[in-house]
C-alpha cells in the first residue's frame, strides 16, 4: 500500500523575513544560474533532513532543517516559508501531474458536492504569490492547474496571470478550473480568455442538459444559462474547452442525454472528464443527497462514454477504480487522483491492475467505496 505524500510539513526554519517563496535546487542545478540565488534554496543532499540557502548577495541566508516529512520536499519543488513559522508548504512539486495554483477561495457557485468549500473573504494577496510561484516553475513543465474558488472572479488579474505564465513558462499549458459564469460577459471573456489560446484549457463543470437540474447542483439560480453563455464566448474566441461532470446521484440520471447535449450544442469541446466523487467538504455534509454506488450507474456511464468517444470527443473517466468499471471502459480511465491524496484500499491486495488504477482519495473511507471494489486477479483482465 502506498502512502499519499502531503503538501505541507514542518521543519526548523531560519532567516525568513515575512514570506519567502523559494525554488529548491541541487547545488549542480543552482550553478546553472537559471534562478537568482535569493530565490533559491540549495538542497544539501548529504545532510539528511536539511536544506539551506547560500545567499551570496546579502549573507543573510535562509535555511531549513530537521524536516519532519522528508519525502515532502525534493529538488525542483517550490516552497513557501513564513517568518516565525515551522510550516513548509509545497506550492509546486517537480514531476507531479497535479500541480495547481490556488487562485482564490471565493466562488459565485455553491456546489452541493464541492470538495473545496469557498470562503468569501478578501484573499487577493494570493495573486502576488502565484506570480512568484510561476516564475519558479520548471521551464519544461507540461501543465499547471489553476483552481479555486472561482478564478475568473479575479477578473483581468487572471488575464495578467496568464500573460505572466507566457513570459516565464511559455511552453506550459494552464488548466483553469472555472464555472465560466463570469465569461458570459463578452468584454471580460475577450480580455481574460482571448489570449494564449493554445496554452490555456478552460475546464468548465456542466452537470445537466437542462437548467433546473444543473442549477440544483450548483445551488445558483441562473447558473446553467450563465455557464452556457460563458461556453459560447469561449467557443467564439476559439479557446480550448474541457467539460467536467462530477458523477453523483443528482447528475447520473440524465448523463447520456448530457452527452448528446454537449455534442449538439458544444461540439467545439475537446475533452469531457467524467469524475467520481471526492468525499471532502460539502460532499461529506450532503452525502444523503448525492451518494450513489458507482456500480449502479455503470450502464449510463458506458452509454455516455461511447456517445462522446464515437463522435470524436476525447473522453476520460477520473477517480474511479478499474474494478468498478466494465472492461470496455478501462481504456478511458485515468490515474487522476493527485499523488498527495491518492491511496489504495486493503482490499486491493493481490490486484493485478493496481499499477494502472486510479485507486481512491485518501478521504474516501469504506462508506464511500463501491460494493464492486475487489482485486482483479483474472489474468485475462490484466492483459
Amino acid at each position, binding site marked *: 500500500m502506498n502512502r499519499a505524500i502531503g503538501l505541507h510539513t514542518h521543519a526548523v526554519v531560519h532567516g525568513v523575513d515575512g514570506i519567502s517563496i523559494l525554488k529548491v535546487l541541487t547545488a549542480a542545478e543552482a550553478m546553472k544560474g537559471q534562478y537568482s540565488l535569493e530565490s533559491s534554496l540549495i538542497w544539501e543532499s548529504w545532510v539528511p533532513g536539511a536544506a539551506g540557502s547560500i545567499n551570496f548577495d546579502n549573507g543573510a541566508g535562509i535555511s531549513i532543517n530537521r524536516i519532519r516529512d522528508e519525502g515532502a520536499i525534493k529538488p525542483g519543488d517550490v516552497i513557501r516559508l513564513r517568518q516565525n513559522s515551522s510550516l513548509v508548504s509545497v506550492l509546486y512539486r517537480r514531476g507531479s501531474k497535479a500541480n495547481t495554483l490556488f487562485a482564490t477561495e471565493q466562488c459565485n457557485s455553491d456546489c452541493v458536492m464541492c470538495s473545496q468549500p469557498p470562503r468569501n473573504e478578501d484573499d487577493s494577496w494570493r495573486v502576488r504569490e502565484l506570480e512568484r510561484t510561476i516564475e519558479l516553475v520548471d521551464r519544461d513543465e507540461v501543465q499547471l492547474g489553476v483552481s479555486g474558488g472561482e478564478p475568473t472572479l479575479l477578473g483581468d488579474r487572471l488575464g495578467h496571470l496568464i500573460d505572466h505564465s507566457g513570459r516565464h513558462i511559455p511552453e506550459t499549458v494552464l488548466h483553469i478550473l472555472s464555472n465560466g459564469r463570469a465569461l458570459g460577459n463578452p468584454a471580460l471573456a475577450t480580455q481574460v480568455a482571448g489570449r494564449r489560446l493554445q496554452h490555456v484549457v478552460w475546464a468548465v463543470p456542466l452537470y445537466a*442538459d437542462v437548467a433546473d437540474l444543473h442549477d440544483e447542483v450548483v445551488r445558483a439560480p441562473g447558473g446553467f444559462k450563465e455557464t452556457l453563455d460563458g461556453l459560447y464566448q469561449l467557443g467564439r474566441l476559439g479557446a480550448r474547452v474541457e467539460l467536467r461532470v462530477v458523477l453523483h446521484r443528482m447528475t447520473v440520471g440524465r448523463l447520456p442525454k448530457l452527452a*448528446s447535449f454537449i455534442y449538439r450544442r458544444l461540439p467545439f469541446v475537446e475533452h469531457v472528464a467524467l469524475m467520481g466523487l471526492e468525499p471532502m467538504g460539502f460532499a461529506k455534509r450532503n452525502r444523503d443527497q448525492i451518494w450513489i454506488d458507482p456500480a449502479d450507474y455503470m450502464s449510463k456511464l*458506458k452509454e455516455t*462514454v461511447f456517445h462522446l468517444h*464515437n*463522435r470524436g470527443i476525447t473522453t476520460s473517466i477520473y477517480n474511479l477504480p478499474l474494478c468498478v468499471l466494465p472492461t470496455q471502459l478501462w481504456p478511458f480511465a485515468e490515474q487522476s487522483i493527485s499523488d498527495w491524496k491518492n491511496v489504495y484500499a486493503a482490499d486491493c491486495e493481490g490486484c493485478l491492475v493496481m499499477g494502472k488504477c486510479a485507486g481512491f482519495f485518501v478521504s474516501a473511507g469504506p462508506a464511500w467505496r463501491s460494493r464492486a471494489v475487489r482485486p482483479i486477479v483474472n489474468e485475462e483482465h490484466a492483459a
Partner: protein
Amino acid sequence: MIRSTALDAGGAQVLLSNDLGDYAILSADEFEAYKLAPDTMSLDRRRDLEARSLLAEDSERQWSQLEKAAFNTRKAFLLEGPSLHIFVVTLRCDHSCQYCQVSRASIHSGKHDMSYEDATLAIERVFESPSQTLTIEFQGGEPSIRFDLVRYIVERAKQRNETEGRKLSFAMVSTLHHLSDEDLIFCRDHEIRISTSIDGPPELHNMNRPNPGRDAWERTVSAVENTRKILGPEGVSALPTITRAALRNPEGLINQYRDLGFPTIFLRPISPYGFATKTRKAIGYDMADYLRFYDQALNYILDLNAAGEPFEETYTAILLRHILTPFHSGYLDLRSPAGAGLGVLVYNYDGRVFPADEARMAAETGDDRFAMGKVSDPFDVLMSSEAMRWLATGAVSEHLPGCRNCAFVPYCGSDPVYHATIHGDPAANRSGTEFCQKHTHIFQSLFRRIATADAETMRTFVSWAMQKPRESVPYCGWIDQ
C-alpha cells in the same frame, strides 16, 4: 420552428424536430399530451424536449447564442461559396447507355469538346469562388478521351493555386476504358480521385451500358484492377445506376460490389433527366418499386454489417450524418438553400455555365432557362443571373409548400433543379413528388430503426454517420430517442 411528422401510416410514432436538427421520437400518447398539455408529460420526457429546444414555447422565444451557433454550423456550407467545379471536357463517349441519351455525343463528333480557351476561362471562374476548398471534377461524355485537356486543366489550376493557396483537389468520372498507364500515373501523381459506373453483374452491366465491343463489363473490371495497381486499392470507387432490371435482385448487385472489393455502394435511382419517355418505359419504374428495392438492399447491407463485414450504403450514410450529427454532410443535392450554383458550378463543353449537372442535361433538351451564362462572364455576373434568381425561388425548403411543415426538412434538401425539370417550377409543391416520396420513405424507415435501437444497427449507423471504420465503434453508445 418545431415540426412534426408521423413515422408510419397509423401515427404510432411521431417525429418532432426543429430547425437545428434536434429531434425526439414520441409515441402516439406522448404526442397527444405534447399537443394538448405538455405539463402532463413525464418530467424526464419534458426535460428531453427542453434540452433539445423542442418545447412548444421554444417557438416563441429568441434563440440562445448556442442555438444560433448550432443553426449556423448546420448551414455553414452557405457562406463557403461554390466548392465543386465540374468540367465537361467533352460530351463524346463510345458507350450508348440508354439512360444517358442527352449527356453524350457520338465518339466521332467534331463539335462536342471543350476548347482550350474556354478551359482557361473556366479556371479563372473556379478561383473567383470564395470557397477555401475547391474540387475540380472531370465529367463527360467520357473525359478520358480528352485527357490532354484534363492534364492542361490540372496543371494550370495547380499553378494558379500556388498564389491562391486554396485546398485544391481533383476527381474524375470515367468508364476507365481509355485511360492508359501513363494517364493513370498522372492521376496518381495529382491525386485525382476516380469513380466509375458498374451497374451490376455482367449481363446487366452490358445490357445497360453497350459499347462498340459489347464487352463493357469485362473491360471495366480489368481497368478497375489496373487502376488499383497504379493508384492503390482505394484509388477508384464505383456506383451503379439502378434500372428496372436491377430492382429484382438487390443482393446480387451488392454481392457484385463485394466480389469486386468495393466497401461501399451508392444506390441511386435512375435519373429522370436526359432520356426519352419511351426509354423510361423500358428501363424506368415507379418510385414505390425503387423504395421496395432500397429497403431490401438496406436490410441486406445491415445484416452484412451485423455479421461483421463493414459495407456502406453511401446515400443512407449521408442522411444519417444529417440526423445524428450537428453538421451537414456537404452533399450538394440535399441542401437548403440548394447547392445548385451556390455549391457547384458546371462548365459545359460549349462554354456555357450551369448550376448543376442536371441543369445542363435539361438545357440539352432545349430549355435555356437553366444556363447561368458563359465561361467568359465573371463569377458575380453568373451568380446574379436570371437562372439563379429563378432557381432561388425554390431553394429554401423551410419555406416551400410540402416541405415547410415536414419534420424531415432539417435533414433533407430543396433540389429546385429537379422540380423545375420535372414539374416546370423550381418552387413546385413538394408533397407527393417522387423526390418527396423517396425521402419521406427513407427518413421514416431510418427513424423507425433509430426508435427500435437494435445495437448492431446503431453501431453501423454511427460508424456511417461519423465516417469511422466499424471496428472503431465497438459499442454504439447513447442515441437520442
